């Protein structure tokens, strides 16, 4: 009898575990289904879509913006924002070109200085957002201008090209058939999610994003947690800048500066809460794959490339509305204008 009770309890516990597991990954599964559906439709619409070359292209196009988006995910989970991700990336690529090509620094020396720049930018963003209480939206908007401007000033607006072969490996290398940028993006995605899910820092970041006051009251050093998030975001943008400049074999102040929209879209579509406290990098990975697939699909279907931006913008809005509806913050009827509803 006791055995039967214990067995029933264990069964109920397993069922509850499965239920909570499923509820946790519901959004991720929905996104995966959306990507697979889109792939199915496109594979019927275009004979070129489901080719190794095309799928590799999608992965490659996703990787640089994806690395930045992972950094943005960390920060948004903590309830902060970094609008300077695109210009941090642009400055990193420009500095790499200036130092390695123009000034002839060894690759390791140039890369180290660029990474140090990322560290400084993260600290500056974090310092002004956390210690002066100016919202990070404003601080990083200002930094967007500062960093972008610096990138142009450094090279007088010129493109500097011609990296050494060893540096170009970062953008053109392959492991088997998989391009190195894709491997870097996937590694960053997995590594960051491991930190978020399984370390004390991750728990503290989710808690800070969910309820900053509560996190402070239980002794979590909110400023330390968020400063690290700002630094991680800037460092990943710097890495993305290095990969992009290696891929393009050049550096210029405008390279990648338009990627802010795609990175933000990927994070939001990936299910990271705009209010902080929820999200994961695998959602972001699927989000950027969805965006790259739509862009790729539009090209294959012969649609004017200018429609790509319209599609990404509309996707952000749709993702936010769907997310709010799922969370019960918005009833589908609320979308109709009041006049129509009387």
């Amino acid at each position, binding site marked *: 009898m006791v055995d039967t009770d214990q067995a029933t309890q264990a069964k109920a516990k397993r069922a509850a575990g499965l239920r909570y597991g499923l509820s946790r990954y519901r959004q991720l599964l929905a996104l995966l289904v959306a990507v697979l559906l889109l792939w199915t439709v496109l594979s019927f619409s275009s004979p070129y879509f489901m080719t190794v070359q095309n799928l590799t292209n999608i992965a490659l196009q996703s990787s640089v913006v994806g690395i930045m988006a992972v950094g943005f995910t960390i920060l948004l989970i903590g309830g902060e924002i970094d609008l300077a991700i695109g210009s941090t990336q642009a400055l990193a690529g420009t500095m790499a070109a200036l130092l390695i090509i123009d000034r002839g620094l060894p690759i390791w020396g140039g890369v180290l200085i660029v990474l140090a720049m990322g560290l400084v930018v993260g600290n500056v963003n974090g310092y002004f957002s956390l210690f002066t209480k100016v919202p990070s939206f404003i601080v990083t908007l200002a930094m967007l201008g500062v960093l972008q401007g610096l990138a142009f000033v450094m090279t007088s607006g010129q493109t500097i090209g011609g990296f050494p072969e060893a540096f170009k490996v970062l953008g053109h290398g392959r492991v088997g058939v998989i391009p190195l940028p894709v491997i870097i993006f996937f590694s960053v995605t997995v590594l960051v999610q491991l930190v978020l899910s399984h370390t004390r820092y991750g728990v503290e970041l989710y808690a800070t994003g969910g309820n900053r006051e509560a*996190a402070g*009251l*239980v002794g979590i050093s909110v400023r330390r947690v968020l400063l690290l998030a700002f630094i991680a975001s800037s460092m990943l943008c710097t890495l993305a800048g290095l990969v992009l400049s290696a891929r393009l074999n050049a550096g210029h102040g405008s390279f990648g500066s338009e990627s802010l929209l795609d990175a933000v879209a990927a994070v939001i579509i990936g299910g990271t809460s705009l209010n902080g406290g929820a999200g994961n990098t695998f959602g972001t990975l699927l989000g950027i794959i969805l965006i790259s697939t739509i862009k790729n699909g539009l090209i294959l279907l012969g649609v004017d490339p200018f429609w790509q931006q319209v599609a990404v913008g509309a996707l952000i809005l749709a993702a936010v509305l769907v997310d709010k509806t799922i969370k019960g913050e918005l009833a589908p009827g609320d979308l109709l204008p009041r006049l129509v509803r009387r």
Partner: protein
Amino acid sequence: MTASVSQGASGANGSGGPDRDAGPVIMAREVHKSFGQVRALIDATFQVDEGETVAIVGDNGAGKSTLVKILTGAIQPDSGSLELDGMEVSFRTTRDSLQLGVTAVYQNLALADNMTVAENVFLGRVPTRWLRVDRRRMERESAELLDSLAINVPDVRATTASLSGGQRQAVAIARAFRSGRRLMILDEPTAALGVQEGQKVLDIIEGLKGQRVSIIVVSHNLDHVFRVADRIVVMRGGRIVGSRRKEETTTADIVHLIVGTR
């Protein structure tokens, strides 16, 4: 912080009541606090004995919140002293008081609703094993803790957002109990709850008394105060105007003290 104290709250008398022979767990002497021209706390001398439950009552603006905030280190007094287990202490932040076993459950509960019950119970003191968060331990120990306090939640893996008001209050109390066994401060623990849920929270507080925890309850509800408190401290206009043992007073007496007709 100028003192450290040992953990543990076992009293000498072995029952659920206060142990006055063991001396006060916390003692505030002639504490004064002003905010600009407003004198929020005037020469307040106050103590809580080992295993004792003290209710602080008073009208809005009586100084209850100021006193509680000083006891937790959320604000610092202008003058006066604080002693914990006979040692003078100075709490500069809530982290200082937390380290010495003084915790508070605030009206807004301070739960991270995006996180699970287990994560909330362990928030700020998450156990790790080889740098990895030990979720199994967290879930097992949370379940054991909630069981020991007779707190009923559907599953420790559920997010606190999915719980009722009473269950959320209970989780906040469990967290405070886990991290602060010298003194727990409960600020309006039943204010936002319905009748049934309020009763359940009072049951939990009575359970805590059985575990010999020293407790301060701030409440407007005199029925609840009379149910759980050993002693009732009345504040008015920033001053402590009376302290009565529950057996030696009545609701009318306390009301007179609160409104100043006695």
